Each structure stands twice: as structure tokens, then as C-alpha cells.
């Protein structure tokens, strides 16, 4: 008995090996490269030849005037995106779930999923036209109500909402599908029982549907917390301009301009490390909270 189990375990461990090797080689070994963040890194001298300068790179980034603005923008854009990106798909999924006609539901599902596949390079070009103050369809529509044209992409106070709305529009279809999948997992008997007790549609949603998909909501929310310092490089980079730096410049675009391409790998690595540490702390905390309040755990 014992022997057979052990044998079984060995072969399982053996099957685990390739995956483990991949993780070690591609995820753990490169961590040695974090040393670059503490070096005056010269690419041609390499990791071992470059001079160590301690926390100089971190101090340098900290000393720059714009760093605090950039950090604030990053967090505010990312948090707004996280909240909107959590609520919108849930609402849409619940609404779609109430729709009886399958072809309508499937049609909507496909349509809202489509923008997910377009890159920001393309979408930024489209948005520039759509939001144009002179020829854009949005401003022409607003014009019907006597509203003066708004230069959405060139106005610091409009830029963040534009980022958040366009990002949610692009991505909410994807998460909607996840929630719809979770909805199918709810036991139909519960709804029948609720109907017997005289619960209407709204009560059913509130007391059965929502609690039914709560674990998935918490899972997605927890995972998205790791992105609190990722405000979306491709999106911002393709849409921003010096006029909206005050509200639109984020860590990634700032580091990029600072000289990613000027061989300033030391500074870039230092910022990357900082972002990773913050994300790690946030994910750990949210995981603990999820465990405590929703009894959700991975391990």
C-alpha cells in the first residue's frame, strides 16, 4: 500500500519537474538581474563588471521633481480602473443573465468582447478622431445640446476619466464572460426555492446570484490589486502629450522618457523593483483579507 502511494507520488513529482524548471529558469534566475538596480550599469561591462552604487538610482528617481506627481497619477488612474473594471462587468453580466433570448445574449457578449483584441496603438488613433474637438462625433453630439467642444485628450482634468472609460470599454467584455461562466454554476434549485418563497427577480439577484459569484469577484479583485502601480503603459503612451503630463504621466511612461533607450537600465530596474515590492505587499495583504472575510484561499 504504502509503496504504491510513494511510487505514485514520485511519478507526480517527476511530472512537476519540467514546470518547476521553467519557473526557476525564467522567473527566479532572472531575479539576479535585480542587482542592476543597485549598479551604475554599463551594458558592455555586464552584471559583474558594473560598479555598485547602493541606493543611488532610487535616490535619483526620488529626487526628480515629477516623481511624486507621477506616482499619484499612477495610483489614482489604476485604482479608478480597478473599481470601474470590477463593477461594470458584474452589472453587465447580471443584466445579460436576465435576458431570455439566447441569440441576443450571445450577440451582445461577442460585441462587447471584441475591443479586447484591438491594440492601443489602433484604438488611440480611433479615439483621437472620435474625441476630436473640431470633427469628433462626441463633440458634435454634445454640440446638439449647446455644449462647447471639449478637448478631451488635451485637457488635464478630462484626461484621467477618458483613460478610465476607454480602458473599461475595451476590457469589460472579457470579465463579463468570466462572470457569466460563474453564473451558470449556480444551482437552479435555489432560484426555484426562492420563487416558491415569493422572491422577485431583484431579491433573487441580491440573495442568490450575487452571493453565488462572490468567490469569483473576490478572486478577480484580489488579483487586480497587484496592478495598482500598473496604470497601462500602452494606453497612456499612445494617448498622452506634454499638456496632460500633470494628470496623465505614469511611472512607466516617465521611466520610458527618462531613458529606457539611453542605456539607463539601472534606473529602470530600480523603478521596476520598487513597483514589484509594492505589488507584492498589496497582493499579500489582499490575500489575507480575502481569506479572513470570504474564506477564499489558494493554498
Amino acid at each position: 500500500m504504502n509503496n504504491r502511494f510513494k511510487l505514485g507520488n514520485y511519478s507526480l513529482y517527476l511530472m512537476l519537474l519540467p514546470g518547476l524548471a521553467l519557473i526557476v529558469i525564467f522567473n527566479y534566475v532572472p531575479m539576479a538581474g535585480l542587482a542592476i538596480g543597485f549598479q551604475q550599469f554599463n551594458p558592455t561591462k555586464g552584471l559583474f563588471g558594473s560598479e555598485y552604487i547602493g541606493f543611488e538610482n532610487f535616490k535619483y528617481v526620488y529626487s526628480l521633481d515629477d516623481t511624486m506627481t507621477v506616482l499619484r497619477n499612477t495610483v489614482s488612474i489604476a485604482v479608478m480602473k480597478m473599481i470601474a473594471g470590477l463593477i461594470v462587468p458584474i452589472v453587465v453580466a447580471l443584466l445579460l443573465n436576465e435576458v431570455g433570448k439566447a441569440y441576443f445574449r450571445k450577440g451582445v457578449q461577442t460585441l462587447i468582447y471584441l475591443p479586447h483584441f484591438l491594440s492601443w496603438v489602433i484604438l488611440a488613433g480611433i479615439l483621437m478622431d472620435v474625441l476630436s474637438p473640431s470633427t469628433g462625433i462626441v463633440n458634435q453630439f454634445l454640440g446638439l445640446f449647446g455644449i462647447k467642444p471639449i478637448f478631451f485628450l488635451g485637457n488635464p482634468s478630462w484626461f484621467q476619466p477618458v483613460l478610465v472609460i476607454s480602458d473599461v470599454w475595451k476590457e469589460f467584455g472579457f470579465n463579463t464572460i468570466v462572470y457569466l461562466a460563474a453564473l451558470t454554476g449556480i444551482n437552479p434549485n435555489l432560484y426555484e426555492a426562492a420563487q416558491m418563497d415569493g422572491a422577485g427577480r431583484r431579491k433573487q439577484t441580491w440573495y442568490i446570484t450575487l452571493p453565488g459569484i462572490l468567490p469569483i469577484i473576490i478572486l478577480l479583485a484580489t488579483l487586480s490589486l497587484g496592478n495598482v502601480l500598473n496604470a497601462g503603459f500602452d494606453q497612456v503612451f499612445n494617448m498622452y502629450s506634454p499638456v496632460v503630463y500633470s494628470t496623465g504621466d505614469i511611472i512607466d511612461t516617465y521611466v520610458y522618457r527618462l531613458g529606457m533607450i539611453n542605456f539607463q537600465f539601472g534606473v529602470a530596474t530600480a523603478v521596476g523593483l520598487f513597483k514589484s515590492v509594492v505589488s507584492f505587499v498589496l497582493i499579500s495583504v489582499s490575500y489575507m483579507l480575502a481569506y479572513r472575510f470570504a474564506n477564499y484561499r489558494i493554498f
Partner: protein
Amino acid sequence: MSKTRTKPLLTVCLALTFLVSACSNSKNADEDNGASGNVSATASTEASASASASASSAGGTASDPFGKYDPPISLSTFRCMNDAETYPEGDSIDNNVWYRAYQEELGVKLTNKWTVSTAGTTCEEKTNLSIVSGDLPDFFPVNTKQLKTLVDAGLVEDMTEVFDKYASPLVKEAYSANNGVAMTAASFNGKLMAIPGTTRGLNNVDMVWIREDWRKKLNLPEPNTMDDLLNIIKAFVSQDPDGNGKKDTIGLTMGKNFYDGYAGLAGFFNAFHAYPYSSASTSMWVKDKDGKLVYGGIQPEMKPALQALQDLYKAGAIDPQFVVYDGAKAAEAENQGKAGVHFGYFWNIGWPIDGMAKKNNPSLEWKPYPIPSADGTPAMVQVPDPTAYSNIAVKKGMSHPEVVVKMMNMFFEHIFSENAEPEKYHSQVVGDKKYGYFNYAAVQGEHPEKNQIAFNAVSEAMKSGDTSKLGPEQKLYYNALKAYKDGDLTKWGDDRTWGPEGSFSVLGKYKDNKLIKINEFLGAPTNTMATKGSILMDLESKMITKIILGDPVDSFDQYVNTWKQSGGDQITKEVNDWYAQNHQ
């Protein structure tokens, strides 16, 4: 940062594909050089023939500029190509007329380790990656910044001797033009560390392109002073130049990159004797009255220019969307006939102005003008970097460093010499497709003033009617000009480039009157430039954008202080040290 480097390059490539004109022939170079050019051409053909006939040992005859390798050698490189590049059926960047010629004429089997697009920063990043990982081919194109890194690390061959020994007279002549300025950026402590490729020369300077038909319609005077020009710009918005009864035109077309060769602002600032930064990260350094080098972008001359821009914006002559538009996007208004003035380079006829557009709209007319001056002193136009766009570096320890020089000789031989076959090696129209063969060549170069030389030759021939002195390609332009004169409107683009009102006539005026201001600093980026340079450029474009949009012009003073404190003073010191070292 890299955007600033690749954008102009990309646009130039585009322009090159649109205009045969941009890549002309340096027949005049031969003329200047008298017989030697011709002798070299014939001698070299014989030499290469004899070399291949005698099947001499590997390496060919000693110091034969066209010697063939027997047995053949295999070499590798990498390429950055324009996405729009087209190839004849069956050909590719790995197998094309040039690669086959390398094999047949030089005995060099050339393979590309990789090929990426010139769009965005891909090329620069991929090249950086190759340098960092040490995965270098036998020879490869690099920019000055990358070359400096390679030289510091001792990863590239010293080319001084090889160049002296193997370069053909035609190549040597081309590289000694403009006081040999093309070589400056590839030279470190007097040693040539790479072969400079296609040069910027003195041609990439601003001029102002104006919708001539609009100007005439509104009875406005030619822009002889900056006030004239500002009036034209304002009138193009307020006086309905397109005559459709709607106020839907833009005065001055601008993009978000003020330093680009299309819809940039360098020319605008130059009119006020101000010299802000530009596409080259090392620019723009001018001499102050004490002979010290100072940065152009922080001088007080900037202020009146900024004020004028702000006034234009307030008058509604600038589309506020310029802040998000790149060149291509900014060009849309112009191509829809909604904009009439922009600052740009000679190749703007071709891109973004369609050289064929007059065929569909015969009343359309664009005319390039020299930059007018804001005061009595003639305006000078800035050349941030007359050195090479790219340099061909050879990996340290490569057994045949001379092969790159030979390939350069071959390029000149097949495209610029007496025996040139431009239809085979430069470009050709087959059916409705145009192939720019010259872009396939792994090593490319040119005489920095070849276009100007062609312009002079063609103008001369147009006057005298004597075409005997024209080279094969100059003849092409001549024929196009003749055809345009006889009413062929498809040749409008050639007329605007090579004709008496064309863009090269404007460049000629600059050169004849010595109105070109070359950056005083031509070295590789200094240490502080490398670490802080991009922040400072960022500051400057932010400052310019904000002042145009309405910040007080006096915020310029604050920018100057920040610039100095954020590394600018240190850079100034390094630049002056470089100058002292190189100009004793």
C-alpha cells in the same frame, strides 16, 4: 528619445521612396574631381575583373577596392527596414539584387541575423539588446550613441587604416566634402571606429511651405519678413482661403514633435535667431560672444518666438490638437485642403504633400520659401547634426574588416559612378509598383551634397539646353522638368523639388549666402547628456507646449533655471571640454 531619432529617418525613407529625386547621382562629384573619378571607375572594373579571373588567394589582391574573395566568405549582419518596403516577386531582404551582387562580385555570402521594422523604437531597442547581450554579427548599423558604447567597451574594429587603404576615390571624395564633417561622429580620438553611412549633410534644414494659390487669391505679399509670414498664417484662418464660406481652415500646421522634419518648429525659432533642441540629442550648441559654447534652447532669443507662437494660438491659427498629433496625423488637414502653412524639409513635396496632387486639382500650388527673419539680420537655419545617420561598425576580431569598405565602394560604383546602373541598383518602376532597390543594400552611403549638385547641374542644363553633362539620373530629373513645362502635371513633384522655385533652390540660397548654422558640438553624447539629456528635452517640449497654450512667456525664465540645475550646467561644461579638446 528614440522617437526623435527614428521619426525623421522614417520620414526621409518614405520621402526617398516617393521621390526618385532624393537619391540622385554625384556625377558632378566626378567632375569636381576631374579625371580621377573616371579613372577610378574604369580601373576598378578592370581590377575586379582581373581579381576574379586570377582567382587570387582569399582576400583578393592587396588593397584592391573591389577585390573578390576566393574562396567566398560568409558574413552576417542585421537590418532595420521600413515597413513600406516592397520587393520584386521572389525577392526579400535576405535575397535581393544587392545580396546577389555581394556574392557574385565580392564573393561575400551575406546573411541577416535578424530584420526588424524602423517604425517606432524597435530597431534601436533590438540593436541595444544585441549590444548588451554581446550577440553581434560581423558588421552592423549603429547610431552614434551605440557606437560610443561599443567603442568604450572595445568591441569594434578600428577602421582608420582599412578605410585609407581600400576606399575608392569616389568614396573618399564624398567623405571629404563639407570638410569631412560626415566622419566626425564616427571618429574617436582621431581614429575612425566605423564607416559613416548615409549622411544628413546640410540638406535637412527648415523652410516654410506655403499654399501659393491661397496666398495669391488673398493678395498677400511674399513672406520676406516674419511679419509677412505671420500675417499670411493669420489670413489663412480668418479670410476663408478655400472659399467655401466656412471658417474651417488651419493657419500653421504643427505636430507634437517640434523638432521633426515635417510640421516642426525649428524654422519658426530660427527666424528669431533662436536655436532650440532638435532631433539630435546633442543639439543645439551655439557660440556666445565670448566664444564659449552655450545651449541654444535657453537663450533669450527664444522668448519673442514663444510670444509670437502664443499670439498665433490666441488668434486661432493653430489647431489645439497639435499636442496629440504626430506628423502623419497633422498632415491630414493639409491633404484635405484645410491647411496652408508648415515648416519642414525639402522632401515635404512627396510626403506629406502628394507630388501628383496637382493632376487632380490643377489650381493647387505649394511653394517653399526660405525662413524669413524677424528683424534686419537674415535668419540662419540650424543643422543639428550633419554627420551620418547610421554608421557601419565592424565587430572586433572580424577577419576581413575591409569588406565593409569594399561594399561601400560597390554602392557608389553601382549608383553614383560613370558606370552606374540606377535601374538595376537604385530604383525602378515595374508596372504600377516602385521598387527602391538601393534600400536593400547592407552598406549605403552618399555624397552629402549630391542633391544640391544635381540641382545645379539640372538648372544649368534647363537654361542652356545642353544635356551632355548630365548623369543618368540627373537626366531623369531634367526630363521630368521638361515634361512639366510641357504640361504634364504628374511631374509637379519634380518641379517643386528641382525646378527654379523648387526646394533645392531654397537650399541653394541658404548655402550660397552662408545662412546655415551647424551645431558646434559634433561629438557623441557626453556622460551627463546620456543620463539627464532626455529629462531636459522633456522639460523643453513641455515648456514650449504650455507657453503656446497660454502659460506666461516669462515661465521660460523658470525653465532656464530648472534646465541649468537639472544637469544643464554640467552638460555645458562637458561640451566645452569636448570643444577645447577637438579645436586647438
